[in-house]
């Protein structure tokens, strides 16, 4: 059983929803990333989504684009990100790490080399935004043969037939993108999301995470009632962007506490 599956199984037994914060590796500076990851865990992160900076993040809104640009100023590429995961693992062997990024950094080293290095760094899952299932058969095979979970996005425009195709390739969990548009666009429509999540559950036993558009305690709470995991990205990156070096960790901790309380309130 993969680390991601273990966490979801344990949470399910306790009737709890996972909280998954997203940060971009190297933002605001590479020296902070591992500390930020530990802070996220100390303040309630059940898993961490770690963004791999890319020069052309087509599916991201301005907040996460700027995070990528800040990281790239310090030349934080895929190799540097994997090294950060390695360092994190020196003191944390339990929290699943899911890399999220774009295809080209993986293409640059090749799917099998990437999968080897991700395994060595002890990465648990990979979301590749611009690898739809039709185009990444070999990549999925390389990951799964090393017990790394390929995590796929489902969108409001994904029809039942495609949901079938995607859940057959995915493992760990599936990630429902709760609105049309880029990351951080606007608040989600909880009724619509709830209907879609219910419909996805009819087609798969995989846990369903929901993200894109969760901006505060209220949306986190509402989402936690219907999803197996709540993913918070742009809001987390905004907190990082608004911080100084002195209050970076405390600001992120405060936001995590607020979100964790909201998720736990939904579970009670």
């Amino acid at each position, binding site marked *: 059983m993969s680390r991601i599956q273990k966490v979801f199984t344990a949470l399910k037994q306790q009737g709890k929803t996972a909280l998954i914060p997203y940060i971009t590796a190297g933002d605001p500076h590479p020296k902070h990333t591992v500390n930020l990851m530990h802070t996220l865990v100390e303040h309630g992160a059940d898993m961490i989504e770690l963004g791999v900076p890319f020069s*052309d993040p087509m599916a991201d809104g301005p907040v996460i684009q700027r995070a990528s640009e800040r990281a*790239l100023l310090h030349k934080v*590429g895929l190799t540097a990100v994997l090294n950060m995961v390695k360092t994190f693992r020196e003191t944390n062997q339990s929290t699943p790490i899911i890399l999220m990024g774009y295809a080209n950094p993986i293409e*640059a080293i090749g799917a099998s080399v990437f999968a080897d290095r991700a395994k060595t760094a002890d990465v648990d899952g990979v979301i590749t935004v611009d690898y739809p299932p039709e185009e990444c058969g070999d990549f999925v095979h390389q990951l799964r043969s090393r017990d790394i979970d390929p995590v796929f996005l*489902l969108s409001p425009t*994904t029809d039942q037939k495609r949901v079938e195709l995607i859940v057959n390739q995915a493992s760990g969990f599936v990630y429902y993108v709760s609105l049309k548009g880029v990351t951080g666009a606007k608040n989600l429509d909880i009724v619509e999301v709830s209907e879609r999540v219910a419909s996805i559950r009819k087609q798969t036993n995989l846990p369903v995470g929901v993200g894109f558009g969760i901006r505060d305690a209220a949306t986190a709470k509402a989402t936690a009632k219907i999803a197996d995991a709540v993913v918070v990205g742009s809001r987390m990156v905004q907190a990082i962007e608004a911080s100084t070096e002195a209050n970076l960790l405390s600001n992120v901790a405060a936001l995590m506490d607020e979100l964790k309380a909201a998720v736990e309130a939904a579970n009670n």
Partner: protein
Amino acid sequence: MQLYDMPDARGHFGQFGGTFVAETLVEALEELRVMYEQYRHDPEFLAEYAYDLKHFVGRPSPIYHARRLSEKVGGAQIYLKREDLNHTGAHKINNTIGQALLAKRMGKPRVIAETGAGQHGVATATIAARLGLECVVYMGSEDVKRQAPNVFRMKLLGATVVPVESGSKTLKDALNEAMRDWVTNVHNTFYIIGTVAGPHPYPMMVRDFQAVIGIEAKEQMLEMAGRQPDVVVACVGGGSNAMGIFYPYIDVPNVRLVGVEAAGLGMETGKHAAPLTANSPVGVLHGNRTYLMQDEDGNIIETHSVSAGLDYPGVGPEHAWLKDIKRAEYVAITDDEAMAAFHNLCRTEGIIPALESSHALAYAEKLAKTLSKDQIVLVNLSGRGDKDINTVAKLANITL
């Protein structure tokens, strides 16, 4: 009969092309693919397209025998396919009309486009005005500054021009931003991509709409010279004008096809926009797999060319394929060589070419010298240079 039959059903040219997009766009691309399949052979649609090409664009564009240039160069006869004489001044309009007519049939009241130099933006704004469609054009803020006349042109035509501040603030970032708009507004918006790149079906669809260039050229060369050219030369940024003239010639034996990339300050400096000539690695950007200028981390690197229309780090996937199967050759021309060819055509033929097309002219001159007087080099003169006079003046330290 066309023997060459690419791409496959999912838009692959061998290992190149494909549909590398976020899940949110998959359905929109599928809708476009189905609608394009329906209309690409529909007589009524094709008649409407042909009518606009004739009466709105002014096609067919002539072929011109550049006698004085040929004589001056000393070698093969140079012929020019005059896309510069089209309405709006370049080949771009052939494609925007096709896609805008499709948008209308699909019931999309809003079109968006990316633009670098502004030619594709102007061509999109033009057809949007004619069809009464709302039009938003994304343009890197650096390009907005450099191409002020085209920005004003688009506004005159009723389009909204959105300056893009992310990344390198140029064409590739404009494309990213247009994609983001499309993801968000996919229900009422048609994205008119300007080159033979992007996810399937764009590379195929743009090629098909531009193929009118080569189809006409084949007839016209027979009439004018009694035979087909020995070599066809076209500049390649994304590669739409080159695909347009190459495609109908792919099955014609003994016609060499040469694509000319921008060598910028020189291939050895790294400041260029020539991924094919530089043997750049294969990667994924803007929805397709192709040769890409990138660093060791797979991040896209900044390109350089005096010509904004060639300043792109990738290349259409079909060019990548034609290079690999050795059906086309790819070479590169520096800024300086292109400028020399620009001035040469102005002075010897009375034609001011676009800086993009000047790259093709420069290589045609080099090549013609090595050929005999009874051989023919056909150059796709993809656009006129009126848009470039500020750039040319600046290089000569002249204030207009």
